[in-house]
């Protein structure tokens, strides 16, 4: 990926080059001080990460510009579904709000350290998870970290974790387009990202942020596998009528996908049972296999499997 910031001078030598911050063209650049004080050259840990992950086949990022659209819920349910037939690992890089330990029902587990590195927490034989949630002294502790420290822990999750050979590695990300996203893309530069699955809800306020995320993927050269529209429509358990809690006033994800030329992977309706499954750390496909949300999810999982 090109790391040259948008506001850099015209003849920017690249923030990772040896002359970063010191070249003649850097004079007066707003980023000059940052470039000249950080270590130059490629990150020495990149080969180590590439080596760690050379047994991992597909790396998928679960992204969304907006918070609370269901990134973690979808990641967990996708992981549960894929782990029926594949080896799956999940990396939770939402450092400030790790939800996966709870959603996957392994809340009070600990990460063990061995000579090979940290052992991830196994949810089942074929499903492992790494999250900062396992390392906090108590569940209420806040992780008040600025960017560099967050980048440090993400690097450790990739470099120092003894991942078993995996078919799929899923990355659950925080909302936004900032430190965590840049870091994971940069750290996986050599080992390659298979694609990003972008989540959204149908209303324009969410789609706005998702457009930004798509722009980020294009800037960072992350291939986009498709968009999943979550919480699309709500079926009242009383009268079975469907109503739009988050109305697609601008055509929802379908219009966005048409506009930007991205496949729509599917729509998952809002179902109170999904929320409950998450609160209790269960696989939704197991606890309510016939519900419309579970059927939609199974369709999407099939499409993702066929795409990789």
């Amino acid at each position, binding site marked *: 990926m090109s790391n040259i910031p*948008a506001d850099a001078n015209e003849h920017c030598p690249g923030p990772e080059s040896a002359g970063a911050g010191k070249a003649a063209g850097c004079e007066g650049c707003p980023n000059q001080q940052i470039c000249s004080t950080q270590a130059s050259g490629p990150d020495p840990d990149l080969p180590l990460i590439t080596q760690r992950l050379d047994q991992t086949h597909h790396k998928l990022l679960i992204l969304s*510009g*907006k*918070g*609370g*659209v269901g990134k*973690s819920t979808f990641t967990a349910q996708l992981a549960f579904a894929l782990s029926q037939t594949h080896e799956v690992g999940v990396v939770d890089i939402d*450092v*400030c*709000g790790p939800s996966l330990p*709870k*959603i996957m029902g392994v809340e009070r587990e600990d990460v063990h350290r061995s000579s090979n590195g940290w052992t991830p927490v196994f949810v089942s034989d074929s499903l492992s998870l790494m999250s900062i949630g396992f390392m906090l002294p108590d*569940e*209420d*502790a*806040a*992780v*008040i*970290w*600025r*960017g560099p420290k*967050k980048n440090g822990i993400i690097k450790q999750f990739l470099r120092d974790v003894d991942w078993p050979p995996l078919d799929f590695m899923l990355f659950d990300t*925080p*909302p*936004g*387009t*900032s*430190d965590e*996203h*840049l870091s994971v893309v940069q750290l996986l530069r050599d080992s390659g990202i298979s694609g990003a699955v972008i989540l959204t*809800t149908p*209303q*324009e*306020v969410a789609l*706005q*942020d998702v*457009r*930004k*995320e798509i*722009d*980020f993927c294009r*800037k*960072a050269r992350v291939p986009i596998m498709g968009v999943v529209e979550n919480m699309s429509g*709500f079926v*009242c*358990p*009383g*009268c079975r*009528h469907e*109503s*739009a*809690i*988050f*109305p697609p*006033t601008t055509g929802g994800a379908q219009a966005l996908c048409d506009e930007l030329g991205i496949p729509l992977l599917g729509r998952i309706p809002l179902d*109170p049972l999904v*929320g*409950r499954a*998450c*609160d209790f750390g269960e696989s939704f496909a197991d606890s309510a296999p016939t519900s419309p949300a579970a059927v939609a999810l199974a369709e999407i999982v099939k499409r993702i499997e066929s795409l990789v």
Partner: protein
Amino acid sequence: MSHPEIGQRLASIKHVVLVLSGKGGVGKSSCTVQLALSLANQGRKVGVLDIDLCGPSIPRMLGLEGRQIHQATAGWVPVFADSGKQLACMSIGFLLPNKNTSVVWRGPKKNAMIKQFLADVYWGDLDYLLIDTPPGTSDEHLAVVEYLQEWNPDGAVIVTTPQAVALADVKKEINFCTKVGLPLLGLIENMSGFVCPHCAECTNVFSTGGGEGLAKHMDIPFLGRAPIDPNLVMLLEQEDKTVVPNVNNPDAEKIVTGSIVETYQHCELSKIFATITATLEAGLGETK
């Protein structure tokens, strides 16, 4: 480090309130907007500062998309949401070339932007400055607290949804406030229930009561419970804010008002938020 330039700006502002939540998508921005609209309706002068740099939603919600910030000798002039200039707004959304542009910034650049918002915006006299934040407990939050600390901001309003997964993140945010010494003004439980427009049955989409329980447990004033209101969602979504949304009966005659402040008063939720702001103002020692 002292920031006298920020102090000068804040001197003409009576109350500075942050709106926080550890979790994303619980309605920080929509609660901020509703607090602002309720306060403006009661005759207060309100400023809304959107420091969610990667996902600014306030311009769309207030119907200010595509508007520009003007540079005056006194500083950046915020964008006003009504003709009476009761409600001012500042967001990075006004500075982006188009709506697809992403802001891919690491911490230091975000901090600099927030500092500029605090130091350079010419708010004038305000009763309230509401600051809408991104989810999490990271750069933006540390930056805004650090810059405001010496000027004693009034505190934070926490927004949560009732389900356990959200509460876990919100507890972290509350701990963040305690750690940095930011007073907690209260907690709003948002999206607590959805009233089916067909059968009027209330479903607790994201369960219910969790926010009130948390407020009690953490010893924070509980400001109120706001259900999901499709009309409010529509109001925040639609581009023309002067038309009163009527989701259940779209063919009914349209009611047109003078500004978003008036339109909001036609939404059911405005009553709940009137109570919430009254509780909040009482906590801040303001009386009508």
